[in-house]
């Protein structure tokens, strides 16, 4: 079995079989992570560049670890994007990296579409590690893996993504992936944070968090950006916390079992209270562990394709 594409640019149009294959392969790799010697020789001799144009500690470390566990040669290339107009163009940077004979590029960039653009100017396998507010496919895969691990399936599971949907790459990838796997997806957040045309993707948009808790099996809670620019979409952190924050009281009030995911890093006391973040419903740290296994699966499946 192998994947149908050479790259993982997003979850858009990724067939069900591919997702299934990645999730199943990840089970094997998760087992590797529990061994005393956490390394397999699968990608020995392969060179993978982690090209990060945007600060990201956890995604980069997760990829780097996944690469090392697979015995690939991992290179980190962090580029400051403080000045886009000055310095080397993206294309020239890529040409230079390629000249050093690499096999795969894991790319994180603040601009949407860069992974796709990369496939146009490079021969390497490309994995999107997050592009602008577009997609973050490995996050969606690890979220799906974590849900499936807990609930045994994805088909028919009701998942609500909560928070700033309009400015989240996690939301879009989750919507595509989950829908392909037969889950029922909705989004919940202030109306200013829900894209105007989102329902055309076949997801329900709601603005009442209690309704979201009552009607779903899973809540995937997104991080609320606290920077000033993002803040123009809601009146205050206090108001957001009161009307959309997930608290123990709110979960108890609606009195039902629910699975809580969060891609991290969490803002305790804003989108999620400490009790919930450390509580019995959440699987936030499982997600982090699963992230390494899922990324190993993606790297392995793409890296051994040729």
């Amino acid at each position, binding site marked *: 079995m192998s994947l149908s594409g050479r790259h993982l640019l997003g979850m858009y149009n990724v067939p069900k079989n591919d997702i299934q294959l990645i999730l199943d392969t990840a089970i094997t790799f998760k087992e590797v992570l529990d061994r005393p010697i956490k390394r397999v020789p699968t990608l020995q001799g392969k060179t993978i560049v982690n090209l990060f144009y945007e600060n990201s500690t956890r995604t980069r470390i997760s990829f780097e670890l996944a690469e090392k566990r697979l015995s690939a040669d991992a290179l980190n290339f962090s580029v400051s994007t403080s000045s*886009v107009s000055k310095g080397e*163009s993206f294309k020239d940077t890529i040409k230079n990296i390629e000249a050093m004979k690499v096999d795969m590029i894991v790319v994180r960039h*603040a601009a949407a*579409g860069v992974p796709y653009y990369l496939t146009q100017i490079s021969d390497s396998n490309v994995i999107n590690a997050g592009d602008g507010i577009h997609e973050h496919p490995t996050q969606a895969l690890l979220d799906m893996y974590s849900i499936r691990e807990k609930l045994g399936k994805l088909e028919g599971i009701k998942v609500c993504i909560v928070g700033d949907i309009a400015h989240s790459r996690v939301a879009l990838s989750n919507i595509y992936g989950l829908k392909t796997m037969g889950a029922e997806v909705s989004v919940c957040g202030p109306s200013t944070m829900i*894209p105007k045309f989102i329902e055309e993707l076949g997801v329900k948009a709601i603005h009442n968090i209690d309704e979201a808790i009552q009607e779903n099996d899973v809540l995937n809670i997104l991080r609320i950006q606290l920077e000033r620019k993002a803040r123009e979409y809601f009146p205050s952190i206090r108001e957001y916390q009161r009307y959309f924050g997930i608290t123990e009281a709110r979960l108890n009030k609606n009195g039902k079992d629910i699975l809580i995911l969060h891609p991290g890093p969490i803002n305790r006391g804003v989108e999620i209270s400490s009790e919930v973040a450390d509580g019995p419903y959440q699987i936030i740290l499982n997600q982090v562990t699963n992230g390494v296994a899922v990324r190993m699966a993606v790297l392995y499946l793409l890296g051994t394709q040729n």
Partner: protein
Amino acid sequence: MKIVLKNIILFNPEQKLNKKSNLLIIDGVINKIGNLSNDDLKNARVFDLNDMYCVPGLFDMHVHLREPGREDEETVTTGCNAAASGGFTGVACMPNTEPSIDSAEVVTLIKERAKDHLVDVFPIAAATVGRKGDVLSPMAELIDAGAVGFSDDGVAIKTARILKTALEYSKMFDVPIIEHCEDETLAGGSMNESINSTKLGLPPLPSVAEDLIVARDIMMAEYTGGRVHIAHISTKKSVELVRQAKAKGLKVTSEVTPHHFHMTDDLVSTYNTNTKMNPPLRTQKDVDAIIDALKDGTIDCIASDHAPHSLEEKEMEFEYAPNGIVGLETQLGLALTELYHRNILTIEQLVEKLSINPRKILNLSVPKFEVGEKANITIIDTEHVWSVDIKKFKSISKNSPFHNRLLKGKAIAVINNDKMLFNDELIK
């Protein structure tokens, strides 16, 4: 120079002229129309243009020639060469140069650079100094130097206050204020706000950003009695607003680009930076509304918004790439292919929108086919099928999404200022 055009269809809606005839042009002036004698043919360059349309020279009222400032992307000369190759004998160039066209000196420089060319260049000067929206440009002086309209193109005139002043002041000269309609507080997106911007994760630019300024400008035109021309109209709502304004008898006109009359934001799907423009490509509903508006005359003109950009500027991340495409050399072909051959516009309507109306809006005389008149002519072969090749563009810049596109209809020749370009060859 003595030129004979044989068996052409003399076609000029302004003169209600539509007949097969022959034309003798001597030293750039129409000498004889109709049957020509052997004497007339003597020492003449004779072109037998069986059943091709001979129309008043086409005019593009919205081009960016980049001179002064970005001569690496286009100059007045190369822009004129591109215009002639595309079938145009006149262009109006926009003031967002470096420095901007806000002084008589810059107008004079451009006029000087265009001198002796087949194509006539008419500068649109900045409405405010530096296009900054604070201080009115020296309009009287600019008009004396050769400016034919005012615009802060690239952006809308910044405030209602300075717009009001600009419209009141420009009324003295009966010239239009040409507006790039975009609310600056809603600006900054990379593509039209739609399901596509959500799917592609690109920062959205909502259509209401255009509609708001169109509404503001129309109200201000009504209040002041000044003239407003809406540049590159792109939304359904804007079109409705202009239609209402015209019904009221206000001095409001509009233009549309070839890309906005036939392309939608679906085409952005591969992050091709040649689908990035401002206003952005919109939805099919908007395109449908534009087609209706072209038919009923709500949209007066077709203009290219020819926007040359260097390769290195366009070869980059979509969000960071500059807006705009070159259009002078594909505009007529696209109009014929997408509007004429699809029976949306008649040849008469096309000539009005590509030649007559833009000249009228800018108070320029429309070329006539009469003995003693200056020959300002475009010869159109509506049936000529050709493939766009950006390598053959006369424009320095090649940023076009139409490379390899098959088009039906082309300008075979242009004549103006006692010069003739035939099949891209200067006739001497």
